[in-house]
């Protein structure tokens, strides 16, 4: 019994590790991507529709590849970056690659909710493009961005379960190897319950932060 609970705790730790590190990278890359998707679009602060279309196309390609395929396809990249293709850290690479386009779209959607009149007011006051991003677009969409961020973290938790397939470890891995292959229903249930709690927690924190920051 102690073996099982030990395994569960270890797997939980791995899942949290993969999720948090991946989320950090996704945030750092996804935010600028989303900003670019909006800023380059028609009427945007850096309007360049050709570049916008190219970027949007790349994002769409990234979003249409099923995660399992993507994971295998970018093995060379993973080896280049991490030095190995097996293990928890190696699993972070495909997680990040898969979630960046998703996050970019989430950020894009949040920024588009900002009333264009406010951007225009800032322009009328002589604000530069950077000032508009830092003082108008991001602060005005912050509650929405945080909700989108929670959505992103939750989907990384989901993807991370699949990363078990390349020996990524984590709760998904444990659930498949013990719960499914060895017919250990208790392990399966344990994994599920922990995943549900994790997802709930992320959602609750996200909602709480978003509503605290909203002054609408």
């Amino acid at each position, binding site marked *: 019994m102690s073996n099982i609970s030990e395994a569960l705790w270890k797997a939980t730790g791995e899942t949290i590790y993969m999720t948090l590190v991946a989320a950090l990278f996704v945030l750092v890359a996804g935010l600028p991507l989303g900003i670019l998707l909006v800023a380059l679009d028609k009427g945007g602060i850096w309007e360049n529709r050709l570049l916008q279309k190219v970027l949007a196309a790349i994002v769409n390609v990234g979003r249409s590849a099923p995660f399992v395929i993507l994971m295998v396809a970018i093995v060379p990249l993973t080896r280049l970056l991490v030095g190995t293709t097996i293990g928890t850290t190696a699993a972070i690479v495909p997680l990040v690659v898969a979630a960046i386009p998703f996050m970019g779209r989430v950020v894009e959607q949040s920024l588009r909710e900002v009333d264009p009149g406010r951007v225009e*007011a800032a*322009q009328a006051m002589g604000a530069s493009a950077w000032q508009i991003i830092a003082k108008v677009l991001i602060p005005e969409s912050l509650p929405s961005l945080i909700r989108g961020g929670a959505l992103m973290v939750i989907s990384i938790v989901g993807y991370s379960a699949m990363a078990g397939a390349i020996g990524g470890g984590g709760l998904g891995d444990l659930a498949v190897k013990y719960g499914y292959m060895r017919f250990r229903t208790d392990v399966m249930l344990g994994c599920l319950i922990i995943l549900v709690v994790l997802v709930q927690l992320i959602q609750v924190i996200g909602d709480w932060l978003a509503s605290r920051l*909203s002054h609408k």
Partner: protein
Amino acid sequence: MIQLQQIAKTYKTGARQVDALRDVTLHVKPGEIYGVLGQSGAGKSTLIRCVNLLERPTEGRVIVDGQDLLALPAAGLRQARQKIGMIFQHFNLLDSRTVGGNVAFPLEVAGWPKAKITARVTELLALVGLAERANSYPSQLSGGQKQRVGIARALAAGPKVLLSDEATSALDPETTRSVLALLKEINQKLGLTILLITHQMEVVKAVCDSVAILEDGRLVEQGAVVDLLADPATRLHQLCYPLMAEAPPSALTGQVGAGERAQTGALAQPSPTLASNWPSHPGAALLGLTYVGEPAEQPVISLVARRFKVDLNVIQGNVELVGQTRIGRLVVEATGDPDDLTNAIAFLEGLNVRVEHLAKGGDQR
């Protein structure tokens, strides 16, 4: 202070081409409040957005405070915009910032030091009467208060010019009056030049020194408000006193439609068909009298009735203050001997009253 020279703005959507502005030339003098009146779709918004180049005109020149804005590079234009305040119909305040933070925005943009910003924000909020609300968020304010914050924000960086894009159109009549009073106060206190666009005649009468009427992208009339109102031949006069129109000026009738007038708290106007429905008697005439300034102070009607054998029956009347000037507009039914009538009219004209014959008794219809 603001000069627009032969501005044209054309939008191209596929094969279709829309001329939003055509050959618009106007000059706003320092310290005056200049109104551009027009119905929605006439190009007002495009016009005012051409002044700070939120829209770049296709043709023409935009000169604000001696600077040719179209010739400026991007950084220069941003600098120039800091000296052109703007307020909006829907306020465009930032939800993420407090009232004080909103007013501080243009100062942050202009790179003011923090301590100076705080002092300036306090000063401006006191000016617009919202000193206690510095830490509130815009969502906690009424529409009128939001517009006051908008005004404080527009004034923060010490602009020479204020642009007002339908700033009172989303407000109720009473709030409209208080916001207009504030604009007038700022105009007089700070000597600020104001260019405003509106579809509300009330706004023009309440605060504007000069006015231009925009129809279908062209300026069809411009001049001092008092002069235009005094002249029954002008469009402004006809819009203001629609009874006088033989045929209602087509393009703008929608804009002074009954609904809008009620909404803006404008005068209750009789239907434009009053003149044609007038039950005429032989020897009677329906006259329109317009008088400006001095004659408005005199009891013209009783003077005429006493001097000539003419009975005057006031059918419709209205005396109001436009800026500093009193303007009177009466529709009277005058009955009497034709000679007496002619003399009475000559007497009125001698008093600087403009007389129009709207209908004559015994007219065949």
